[in-house]
């Protein structure tokens, strides 16, 4: 049943998704998962926010993955996000020099997450954005969204996706600059202020 005969295309059907459950914490998160920007990079951007459910309660058992282009708009093709140590079997972590464009960040007990990355450059017709994939206990299929950054209003106004989002929900896709210089991006899974989620076809 799960040996797929690739000579019969009608049998090549997708493997269903399942929730990550509550016990991924010793398996998927890794030290420095949110430290995507090279160490000490002058253009480091700090993102932070909460993930909340339909009752407004923050999720202590969720994680997200960020994936974006580099500042020139190129897709990073360098590995090494989760470098392992063959001597100890532990993590070496990122080398602090290369930019892999990808990070994995779990929420803390307060449902808060943060990450440091570089502001992506534009690609194609889109304003610069960071792609986000959300996973949580209770979420049977992960959710995609995007973090757009404020600043270049003309680019945001021309973005094909933002132009298709109802005006009252558009702000859920744009991070807000805080007084401390960080960018706030909350993810509301359900209810008032529900984040715009995406599917790709």
């Amino acid at each position, binding site marked *: 049943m799960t040996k797929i005969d690739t000579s019969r*295309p009608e049998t090549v*059907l997708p*493997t269903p998704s399942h929730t990550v459950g509550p016990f991924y914490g*010793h398996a998927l998160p890794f030290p420095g998962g949110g430290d995507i920007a090279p160490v000490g990079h002058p253009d480091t951007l700090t993102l932070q926010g909460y993930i909340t459910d339909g009752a407004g309660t923050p999720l202590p058992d969720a994680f997200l993955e960020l994936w974006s282009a580099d500042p020139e708009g190129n897709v990073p093709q360098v590995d090494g996000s989760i470098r392992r140590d063959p001597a100890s079997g532990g993590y070496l972590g990122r080398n602090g020099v290369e930019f892999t464009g990808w990070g994995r960040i779990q929420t803390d007990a307060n449902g808060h997450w943060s990450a440091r990355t570089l502001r992506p450059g534009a*690609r194609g017709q889109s304003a610069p954005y960071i792609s986000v994939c959300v996973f949580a206990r209770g979420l049977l299929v992960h959710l995609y969204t995007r973090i757009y950054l404020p600043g270049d209003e003309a680019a945001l106004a021309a973005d094909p996706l933002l132009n298709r989002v109802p005006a009252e929900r558009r702000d859920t896709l744009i991070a807000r600059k805080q007084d401390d210089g960080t960018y706030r991006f909350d993810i509301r899974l359900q209810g008032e202020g*529900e984040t715009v989620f995406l599917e790709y076809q």
Partner: protein
Amino acid sequence: MTLTQHDIDREIAAEHAAYEKRLADGAPVEHQPRRDYAPYRSSVLRHPKQPPISIDVSKDPELVELHSPAFGERDITEIDNDLTRQHNGEPIGERITVEGRLLDRDGRPLRGQLVEIWQANSAGRYAHQREQHDAPLDPNFTGVGRTLTDDSGCYRFTTVQPGPYPWRQHVNAWRPAHIHFSIFGSAFTQRLVTQMYFPSDPLFPYDPIIQSVTDDAARQRLVATYDHSLSVPEFSMGYHWDIVLDGPQATWIEEGR
């Protein structure tokens, strides 16, 4: 009021009947669970109520989601895919070998992609601090592994058979034995997290998580096949489980070159 297995059984049957009716009325086959599946109570407040906005990737081949982060030899060690060798001693339990291919929707192998797994030990206990199940921890088993698919898209793990375990959604709730998988494809749109089950588990009908996949054929695709040719003589039992990633990718780039 205490939630019983009988209550959950009725809800599972109702969801299944509703899906069968949608099919009979001409709706498409649902390969994926719905995020709103009340028999699994944790989904109730954690699914969006607004429909997702659909992005037609053919309109913009430059989308970063059509690419995937890279993982390489630096991101794994040689024994990361052998969960029986990560401690000084041998873990307790029936050793198993799990092997399969990672494919896209066109049946093409996905090479060099990261596959991560995690699981309970043979007594049904996770090495996770929040785990409350009163079963023994195994000092020689963490239950975490990772590997990269090879040039034919194959992955392979050596581990021990995980045990079923109770959880507290309702009275006498038990999860069928399973291994969690996290998988990357050639595009971020193909990202998948799921669970692999073992053949003929008597707990399947009672478990709202596997039953969240309401299509009978799709649910069967989560169940590995016993494969005697993968059993290692005098060492392990073999299971085969192919994985097919959904989601569009930038295939036109290769074809256009």
